[in-house]
Every structure is written in structure tokens, then in C-alpha cells.
């Protein structure tokens, strides 16, 4: 099967993730969508790696995972803090800062 299809899939996933970020309110879900986007990138990397026949892409995918993990740590920490102080994980509730 043509590996290029994986690219389309990656793009699709990425778009889904982005859309999720735009339309979901729950901070956790939003964050998950970001993760989804990252993973879409991973897919793309791996596919290209396959196409190019070099391993860089695959290695990069690992880096991405590490970074994603780090982001999860920080992100969840922040989200949890704000949840505890606001008793809501909705990103729309947090808009003291505006204009």
C-alpha cells in the first residue's frame, strides 16, 4: 500500500486534533487534542522516515514522545491547580484576563 496514505491520515489526525482544541471546552480534552496533534506529527515523521529510507524520522518520534510526556506533566499540574481553585476545568471559565 502506498505509504503516502499514511501522510493523509497524519494530516487528518492533525486536523481533528486542531479542531478539538478549537471546539472543546474541557481543558483536559483540549490538552488531549494537542497530544493527538503531536502524535499525528509522529505518524508523519515515521512515514517520511520510511519514504526517505533513513531513521531520523523514527528517532525524532521518540523525542516527540518524551517532549509530549514532559508537556503532560507540566500541563496536568497547571490544569489541576486551576481546577482546584476554580472547581471547573472549562477553559472558557478562565477569562479574568481580557481586553
Amino acid at each position: 500500500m502506498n505509504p503516502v496514505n499514511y501522510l493523509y491520515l497524519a494530516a487528518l489526525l492533525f486536523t481533528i486534533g486542531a479542531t478539538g482544541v478549537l471546539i472543546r471546552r474541557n481543558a483536559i480534552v483540549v490538552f488531549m487534542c494537542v497530544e493527538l496533534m503531536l502524535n499525528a506529527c509522529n505518524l508523519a515523521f515515521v512515514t517520511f522516515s520510511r519514504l526517505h529510507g533513513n531513521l531520523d524520522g523514527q528517532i525524532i518520534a521518540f523525542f516527540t514522545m518524551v517532549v509530549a510526556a514532559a508537556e503532560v506533566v507540566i500541563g496536568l499540574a497547571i490544569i489541576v491547580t486551576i481546577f482546584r481553585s476554580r472547581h471547573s476545568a472549562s477553559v472558557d471559565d478562565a477569562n479574568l484576563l481580557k481586553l
Partner: protein
Amino acid sequence: MSSAASVHSLWTAAADAPQKIPAPHIEYAQLSPTLIVLGAAVLGILVEAFLPRRTRYPAQLLLATVGLVAAFAAVIALAAGGYGTDKAHIAAMGAVAVDGPALFLQGTLLLASLIAVFTFAERRLDPAAHGRRVDSFAAQGAAVPGGEAEQEAVKAGFTTTEVFPLVLFAVGGMLVFPAANDLLTLFVALEVFSLPLYVLCALARRQRLMSQESAVKYFLLGAFSSAFLLFGVALLYGYAGTVSYAGIADVVSGTTRSVDPALASTSGNDALLLIGGALVLMGLLFKVGAVPFHMWTPDVYQGAPTPVTGFMAAATKVAAFGALLRLLYVVLPGLRWDWRPVMWGVAIVTMVVGAIVAVTQTDVKRLLAYSSIAHAGFLLAGVTAASPDGISSVLFYLVTYAFVTLGAFAVVTLVRDAGGEATHLSKWAGLGRRSPLVAAVFAVFLLAFAGIPLTSGFAGKFAVFKAAAESGATPLVIVGVLSSAVAAFFYVRVIVLMFFSEPRPDGPTVAVPSALTSTAIAVGVALTVVLGVAPQYFLELAGQAGTFVR
């Protein structure tokens, strides 16, 4: 990084002898600035872990200061050693560039961070809690605002000395960011300096809700943008088969042969290149706060603890613009005719929006946030010049801007009332009468922002516009001067408020800072004036540093 570098060696070695993997060759000496800072950061963690609470603050402060100074010394040494000019080359097996712009920006970053650290460490502004002097960071970041946990934390005299290692980590990332010579390193560095910043934003002692909100916004949007950047990286990788700047540049300019037919389907496919490039650009533009990726800036600047805001505003811009320059001048010079018009557009929109929206701001920190957006626009005007002059002018502008910004935010921390910092402009009325000195200093910074002659701001603005004009971007210059005219309005408004209107009875008091903040402000003023009156030396420096290594 080192591991990243080994990737390449692995693959290149994989062809003949997969069994023995040669260790990558790392020039530790030339990476020393970064390594020192990161090392200090790690030590900082250990300090947090093992030292008693009493001694942490001095230890951390000492550690941070020493680390940054040492790193700065290292940068100087490298520059003196000629790595900025003739010995400039790519270190760590293609991962990091050691060249003029890198060293120049690293030096700037380190100085700026040092000053920022001073403001972090300031403990005389907030009224002492239970007899203990406190800084502007939450007693316990995790405690619920206003909850009893927080009360106890305060009573117990907790302080968040973790901020120092966090800052150091951020600085470490920033040092790599403008030096990164392949897209992976770029991405990693981006995350390395972003993640600590997210945390720092959440740690304000006063108005914690705002602080946390700013952190969430910054985090979500930051992650969002880095996802875009990463996708861009992926596409570029797909286009060129490599993530190293030089490699991509070669493919762009068509000098390399495509590796094998299998690549034909993607390699040299301009769609990938252009989209990928655009996405990576977007990631960087987000960090520099360019329109339309600027919307996080005001909220975050306002919500974050003021020292952090100052640090972000100064250091992040320096680092991000460094990376942007390298990307555009090293990776995409072949595409100049594609990206320059686009960047023109971005620059114009950024200048105009930043200047105009700032006009109606009522909060000092938000005002400065928008002003920083406008300045990002001016810097972009210099970036688009696509000429050595462009590079050096941007470098110079970054220096001037960084220190003015730090100074300005440092002053903001001084003006306080019962609720902490009095950032609402109406409270600044008549400040010139209450404390002429502080007001005068702030006025100097504002004038520098406005680009009045004899301040550093003017020299910088003149430099970038000159570069832009010489590269034929006349319309950009016109828009630039017009928007600076608009911008002048709101700087002047603040001055009017401070000097020409009567002080309010319930007006804020101006806290007398310790030597730390005083130093920060003093340095800011000094550089503002020096760079304004006699910029020649720094211009030359920037000029020498104005060439990227390929």
C-alpha cells in the same frame, strides 16, 4: 542534544558497520555556556532537595548568579577566541551552531537573565508576612488560593525558591534556541524553555487566579503552537529527508542530488516545503508575539508575576528572534522571494495592531504587552531586510529592547498599594509628584520605547528601518514611522498621567527596593542612555556578529 547528534552518526554509520556505534564528537568547550547554565539548574534542583529551607534562598540566588555570570564569561571567552567570526562552525555534529549571532544573542540572554534573576530575588517590596521577607512568588504554588493550606504555607514561611532552577532551565533552552542548527534541536529547545515558563507564570503571590489563568492560556496555546511547529518540522523533513538546516538549505537550492528514487514522491515537493516552512515560521512567530499569533501576550503578561513577565518579554523575544533569523537566513534563503512578502505582511499587521490596540489600554502591564507586540513588528521589519545589515540591526535592536523592557517591568514592581502591584493606569496619576525619581526613570523607559532620539530605542528603530529601507522595503518604513507615531501617543499618555495630573489621595506608594531591583533598573537606564548616545561600539559588535555559519 548530544543524543540528537548521535542520530545522524548512527545512520551514516549504519550503512557499513551497524555493530559498532562510534561515540559522537561533542565540542564541550564551545557548548559550555549552555552546559554551565543547565548544570547550575540541576544543582538548583539538588539544593531544593537537600538544603534546609532557611538556606535555600541565598544558595539558589548565589548559584543562579554564579552560573549565569560564569556562562557569560564563557560566551565572552568564545567570542574572544574568534568563534564569533572566523572560527565559527557547527558544533555537536550538526546540532548546534557556534557563530556570531549565536554568541551575541547568548551573551544578551545571559545578561538579561541575570538582571531578571535579581528582580526574581527581590524581597523588600511585599510587606513581610509573619516577620519574614517574601518575594513576589506564591508561598506554595499548589495550594488553593485563599485556602487554609495557603494560610499555613504562608505562616510556615514557605517560599518558592524553585523559581531559580526553573529560570535556569528556561535560560538553558533559550541559549540553545537561537543556536539550534537542526529542526529537532529547535523543537526540543523550544519546549525546554517554554515548559518552565508555563510553571513560572502560575506562581504569582498576589492575584493567583489571574496568574493561574495566564499559565493555562499560555500553556494550551503554547502547546498548540508547538504542535504546529512540529508538524511543520515533519513536512520539512519529508521534503528534504533531513532536519539539519544546511541539508534542507541544500535541497532548497537544489545543490544536492536526491538520495534515491524512493524519495522522488516527496523530495523537492515544494508544497511540503512551503507548508512546512510556513508552519515552522508560525511556531516562531507565536513566540515573538506577532499578529495574529499575539493574543496570548497581553493576558499572560498581565497575569504572570511581574518579574516573570519582564523575563519573558525580554529573553523570549531575544531567543525567538534569534531562531527566526537563523531559520530564514540559513534554511530558507532560497525561498526569499516566497517568504519576504509574507513577512512584510506580518510585520505591517503586527506594527499597526500592536500600536493601535495599545492606545486604549488601562493596565500598565497590558500596555507594555501591546507595546512589545508593536516592537516585534519593528523587529520583523528589520528581519525582512534579508541582508547582513538586517541581521545586525535586529541583533542591536534586541539588546536595546531587552534592557529597556526589564527596566520598565522592574519599575512596575515598585508601584504598589494594598492589593500588591498597582498596575491600573489610573493609580499612576501624579506619580511624578510623589516620587519624581521613579517617575522620571519610567519616563526614560517610555521615551526609549517611543523611540525618542538620544535613547537606545531611537538608535534601534533607526537601525532596523535603515536596513529595511536599504533592502527596498520603503512601504514598511512608512507604516513603521506612522505606527510609531500612534505608539508615541500612549507612551506620552502615561507620562502625562504621571507628571501633569494631580496625585490621587488613595494613590499607590512606591516601595523602596533592595540593591537587587535597583541594580536592574540602574542597568536598564544606563544602557538606555549609553546605547542612545554612543551606540557605535554595540553596532560594530552586532555588525561583526552579523553572519550565520552554514
